[in-house]
Structure formats: C-alpha cells, structure tokens
C-alpha cells in the first residue's frame, strides 16, 4: 500500500487526477466515451506514443533530446510495408526485428554524433529529422511505391496489430512490457542510475568516472529501437502506410514526456510519468471532438500542454527555493 502511494505520489498522481477529470467531463457529455470500446481505443491510441515517450525519456533524463523520432518511426513503418511488397509472407517477427534494428541504427547515428562528436543533440536530431524523412520519401519515389495498403501485407501481421488478449490490445501489452522493463532498468541497474547522474550534473558524472559517452550512445540506440518498434506497430495496426507516417510526432512526444514530469534539463523524471503524460494527451485529443472542439486544436493543445507543464514545473521550483530561503531566515532569527 505504501509502495503504491509512493509510486503515485507527486507528478504521477496529479496526472492521474487530471486524466480522471478529463474522462469525467467528457463522459458526462457523451457516455460512450467510457464504453468498453472507447477505453479500448484510448489505450490503443496511447500505446504507440507511449513507446516513443519511453524512448524519449531515456534521452531527456541525460539532458539530451531526439527530435527525429517522428521521421524514424515513418522510416521503419515504411520499411515494414516494403518488406511485404518484397515477400507477402514475411514472418511478422522478422518485420518487428528489422524495424527495431533500423530504428536502433538511426538512433546510433544520432547518438554517435552527440556522444562522440559532441554535437548538441538538438542540432543533430533537428538535422536527422529531415534526413530520415527525406530517405523515406526518396525510397518511395525511387520505387514508385507511395502507399502500401492492408491487402499488400500478410494477414498475420495485420491481426498481430489489431489483435488482443483478454480484451487488452497487443499494442498496449507491448507498451506495458516496455514500460515495465524500462522502469525496472532505470530504477535498479547501475547504468540506469547513471543516466540520471549524467543529466543531473555532467561534471560530477565525469568526476565519478561514469562513462557518459557510452551511456548516452546506448540510450540513443535503445530509444531508436523503441521508435522502430513503434513504427512497425503503426504499420500493423493501421494497415495503410505512406512516407509521411509520424510527421510532427516529435512535438507530441516531447510534450508527453515533459507533461509526465521529466525535467527538460535532465536528472529527474520517470518512464511511468512519461507514459501517463502520453495517455493524458491522447485522452485530451480524443475528447476534443466529443466536447465539440474541432480536431484542428490537437497540435495547439500539445504545444500548450508542453508550455503549461514547464511553466508549472518552474513555478513549483521557484516556490520551493523561496520556501527554503524563508525557512532559513526563520531559523536564523
């Protein structure tokens, strides 16, 4: 009981409360929002972005960022489709592994530039955002395959994406497993704690002998693999792919992570928070049309949520510092 309370204390708890509020208000307007199907859809929609958020968290904790996630996701989604065009009966597991490998390779390229060449992650990933997207489009125009439809993919692959176990979608199960593994590693492994250390104070990390370059590179590779997985899952769930899959997703992911309480300057935050952040933003997005707000608002909402979250974090921090200062003055007086 205590553990659960500790787990949900602070940021996670407030997100859960916000989530409850959104769900309540929306359900009051339209009860079908909370139907079995409604919840099913909600979790499905949140699963892919949750995977991206888990990967992004690993990076943001170390004071880095990856803006190329949307493009990497698009590239791996498109590759999944191409694999089926090459061989209609490609085994699903092969597609998944290939997608993760390609994602990891894209992450490794980003990570190498950041960790070895010391180029700021912002610049690297802003650049590769366009490089990876361009490669996808280039691939599409070189092969003339601009869209890949469900009937071109294997039945097994499609049912993998839309299937469920005991009413829980496969995608959600995968996201939950990824969340559990990442949360476990970040909490219990030395290398996980070292990611926090690198973000909390790079200089102290150096003095403590933490191999920061290696850790950051690894974080990029793991994050890339997760993004790759997300791309493949996108393909298998939606069954229709073109070269523009995932465009602009980086905003939603960064917003989810920051809303989830991961400090943009690194050093603190949890993957659980980030995933809850993703769930909250997805829920708000799904609630908008029901509440009569045009879907156009989605981008604006993501952006506004990000701004609100960092502003709140800042306000809390300032108030904390202020309180410490006042306490000190009381102690002295």
């Amino acid at each position, binding site marked *: 009981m205590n553990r659960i309370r500790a787990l949900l204390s602070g940021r996670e708890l407030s997100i859960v409360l916000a989530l409850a509020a959104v769900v309540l208000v929306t359900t009051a307007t339209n009860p079908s929002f909370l139907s079995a199907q409604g919840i099913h859809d909600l979790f499905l929609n949140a699963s892919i972005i949750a995977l991206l958020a888990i990967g992004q968290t690993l990076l943001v904790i170390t004071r880095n960022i990856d803006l190329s996630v949307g493009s990497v996701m698009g590239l791996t989604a498109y590759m999944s489709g191409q694999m089926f065009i090459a061989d209609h009966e490609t085994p699903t597991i092969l597609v998944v592994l290939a997608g993760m490998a390609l994602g990891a390779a894209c992450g490794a390229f980003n990570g190498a530039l950041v960790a070895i060449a010391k180029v700021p992650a912002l610049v690297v990933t802003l650049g590769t955002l366009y490089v990876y997207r361009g490669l996808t489009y280039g691939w599409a125009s070189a092969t003339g395959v601009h869209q890949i439809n469900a009937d071109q993919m294997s039945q097994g692959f499609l049912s993998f994406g839309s299937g469920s176990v005991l009413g829980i979608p496969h995608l959600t199960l995968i996201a939950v497993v990824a969340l559990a593994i990442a949360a476990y590693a970040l*909490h*219990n*492994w*030395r290398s996980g*704690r*070292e990611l*926090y*250390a690198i*973000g*909390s*104070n790079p*200089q*102290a*990390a*150096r*003095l*403590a*002998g*933490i191999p920061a370059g290696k850790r950051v590179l690894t974080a990029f590779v793991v994050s890339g693999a997760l993004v790759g997985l997300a791309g493949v899952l996108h393909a298998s769930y939606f069954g229709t792919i073109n070269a523009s899959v995932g465009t602009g997703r980086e905003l939603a992911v960064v917003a989810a992570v920051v809303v989830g309480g991961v*400090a943009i300057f690194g*050093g*603190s935050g949890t993957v659980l928070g980030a995933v809850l952040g993703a769930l909250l933003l997805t829920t708000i997005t799904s609630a908008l049309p029901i509440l009569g707000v045009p879907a156009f608002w989605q981008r604006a909402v993501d952006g506004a949520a990000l701004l609100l979250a960092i502003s709140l974090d800042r306000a809390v921090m300032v108030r904390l510092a202020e309180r*410490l*200062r*006042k*306490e*000190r*003055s009381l102690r*002295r*007086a």
Partner: protein
Amino acid sequence: MAAPDHTGVPLLELRDVTKSFQAVRALRGVSLALRSGEVHALAGENGAGKSTVVRIIGGEHQPDSGDVLLDGEHVRFSSPREAQQRGVAVIHQEPIQFPDLSVAENVFMGRQPLRTGRRIDRKAMHRRASEVFDQLGVPIDPARQTRGLSIADQQIIEIAKALVADARIIVMDEPTAALSAVEAERLFRVARGLADRGAALLFISHRLDEMYTLCDRVTVLRDGAFVVTERMADIDNDTLVRRMVGRSVEQLFPKRDTEIGEEVLVVDGLTRAGVYRDISFSVRRGEIVGLAGLVGSGRSEVVRAVFGVDDRDSGTVTVDGKALPKGKPRNAIESGVALVPEDRREQGLVLELSIERNASLARLRQVSPGGLTRQSRERALAGTWGERLSLKFGSLSDPAATLSGGNQQKIVLGKWLATEPSVLIVDEPTRGIDIGAKVEVHALLSDLAAQGMAVLLISSELPEVLGMADRVLVMHEGRITAELSRDEADEESVMYAATGNGSAA
C-alpha cells in the same frame, strides 16, 4: 581500513613535481610526502600552487616532470576516476554532486551494492550509508534528495563517499571556508578519526589556527615552489607566515595613510529573506572598508545587491546622497559604483572575448560616439588602462583567456576603473593570482583610496583585510556582527565575530 602505517614509506609522495600551463609555471620542484595516520597541512598564499597540487594528486592534471609515488611505486593518474580507484579522495570546498539524486546514491554512485540479477540493493545501500553517517557522527537521511543540503552536509557526503570507497589518501581543499565554528569542529573530529584509522590526509586552509589544531606536519609553498616541510610543533606562527609570504608585511600590504572624507556609499537596512538582514554601513571618501566573514555569510550577496545585479527585499543604497534603484546595475554604474566580482572567470570577464572588448564592456556607450562602436576607441581605452596597470599581453585582440590569472584580474580592474567610479567594490580581488600581481593589486587599491576613492574590500584572506582596511565589518549568517577599527581588528577578534560569537553591531 588499513592499520596505521609506521614503516616510514609514505602512502603518497610527490617528488620534484613541475607543472606549467602554457607559459605559466604553476609548480616548480614541489615535493610532498603523505603518511598514514597523519594530517598534513599545505600552506601558501593565494596563487602559491596549492590547487595545482590538489589536482595532480586527484588525477585531474598530470605533472610535466617529477614523480608521483603510491606506496613507494610510481603511478600516473590519467583521470580522476583512476586516482579514486587507487584510493585517493578529494573533498572540494564546494562539493560537486548530483542534486536530483538521493544522498545514498551520491555516496554510492558507481559502486552501489548489488543483489542477484545485478539489481541495486537499495536497502543495503541505505543501511551502509546510515552506518557511515553514524560513524561520522552526523545524522543525514540517506533517502533524502541532495538538493538543498548545506555545504557542511555536502562535505560530509563527500567524506562518506571516501569512506565507502576505502580511500586511504584524503585531500581536503579549504573545507572550512564556508563552515561555522560548530561545523568546522565536527569536521576536525571526523578528519582526526580518519587519520587515526590509518588514512593520510592533506588539509588546506586559509586559517593558521586550524592547521595548528588539526595537523601534524606542514608543507609550505610559495610562488609554485617548495619552501619547507616541518612538524607543526616545530614551527611557530610568525615563522610560518614568513615562510608563506617570503617578504615583509609592509611590502605585501603597502597601506598608505589617507585623508578620510565624507560618506560616499551609504547602505541602510538592506534585507533579503534567508540571505542577509538589516545590513547598514557606509564607506567614506579615501577609506578602505574591509568586509570579512566566512564564505556563505552573505558578504558577496550584499555587495551584489548594492550594485544591483541581485534583488533585495528592502533597504536603501545611496551614493553621494542619491538613492540607487534596486536591481539596476546600469544606474549604479552611472552613479559611480563599480564592482569587481568574486568569480573572475564567470562574472568579471568574457574569457573568449578579446582584451579590448572586455575592457570596454562596462562603458560601451563611451566607445560608441553617435551610437556606432569604434574599434579604435575600444583599443585606445584598453591600451590606456593596460599601460596604467602594467598589463602583460601579446595583443589587445587576444582573448582574455590567454592571460594569467593576475593579468586577467588587471583587465577586470581596468574595465571598472575606466568607468571612473567614486565607489569601488572589490570581491576577493587576489584569489588565484600570484604574489607579484597581488602586491600590485594591493598597491593599486591603496593609491586609489589615497586619491579619494571609497573602497569596499571583501576577502577570505584575513591578513589581506587586516593589512589593507581602515575599518573592518564582519558578517556572520547574513548579519553584521562586528565593526572594528584598524586598531581593534586582529585575527582573533575578526574570527570571533565571523564564527558567530560577536554581538550585533
């Protein structure tokens, strides 16, 4: 812990070590032996080379020549990590930690106890940390976040780190600079205990009385050179000072008698909750007022608020009878206040900018007739002041970073004197500069006061305050606890007030 070592082989030894940075020779032929069970003092003025010694022992720098011996064997630490693995721990004046992580994690980073499956054993980690803190006699909750801990507690964490790493050589670099009397006492107890259990300690402090209290032997450095190693009991205070300074007090502090005029800077009731409160004082024309106190007592914060870079809650600052608005450095500059800040590299200079651009930074409008900045004017300004302060430089377009600490400080002084101030505030003006430059700075301050400038001098080096000031204000925990005339002020009276024993002035 290893048993006390009486075989005579030092745990760590430096032999004839030299180290240069570009053209600057920071260390020349320094030898030093640290023995098990012994607390060894490293004494020297600002700029004598103490920090370089610390960095070589800690693996941050490698010597250009000479030897480092560990247990009598040659070693070469290529990184701080390597030094740590060989049993060296350095405790800095301001510890470098992970503010977001827990105390226990800071203590155990990189060597956390593991359970099966390479899983961190948090229980064991917290238990071990509690044990170590008990052993040190300081109750700190291992589970709390490190952010917000006092400097004294952070140092204890560093010591705990050294303990769990089984460090045998522990270097403490000015650990007491920010500590109250009680905290310093606690630290000494811990340090003594470490030595008794067989560790070799190197202790650096500005305060001689501390060395006599704690240390067994002392090595004196001057201008980067080895002077002497003596048993503490065999060297008296005056001899020690003479060895450190290497010249007479008159040479070091060329204080001139001046005519003290009317009040120029008047500070009244300055308060910032939790930082300082009810600070009132004045500085007169031709007067040098010393502001003493421990690091963290609020000295720098007060002058920063006077100058306007920091905010204040209440109180007034007037210059020549004119009130300065709060939080506006530009108004302070226009009213004739100049602040040579504490951190030369972060606050005084833009290291990557050229000398001339640094020199004109505080008076850009004066080098920009008609709104257009002229390089010729910048250069003339820098040239004039460079000459007056006998600045040594290659070219005025060289980055400030290429100069030595003393010459960098001269640029900062020149930059502020160029604003033609009537009040000059100098915060730690001789930190990290060599003795030659130090004497020049003292002479300059003396001259400026003689010409009628009002000078407010902050320094952690007591001899500097005592040698230069006409009047000494002492701060403790954000309050002025004593105001002493030149005759009343001595080492004892100032430290008495600075460690919290004085009555409010």
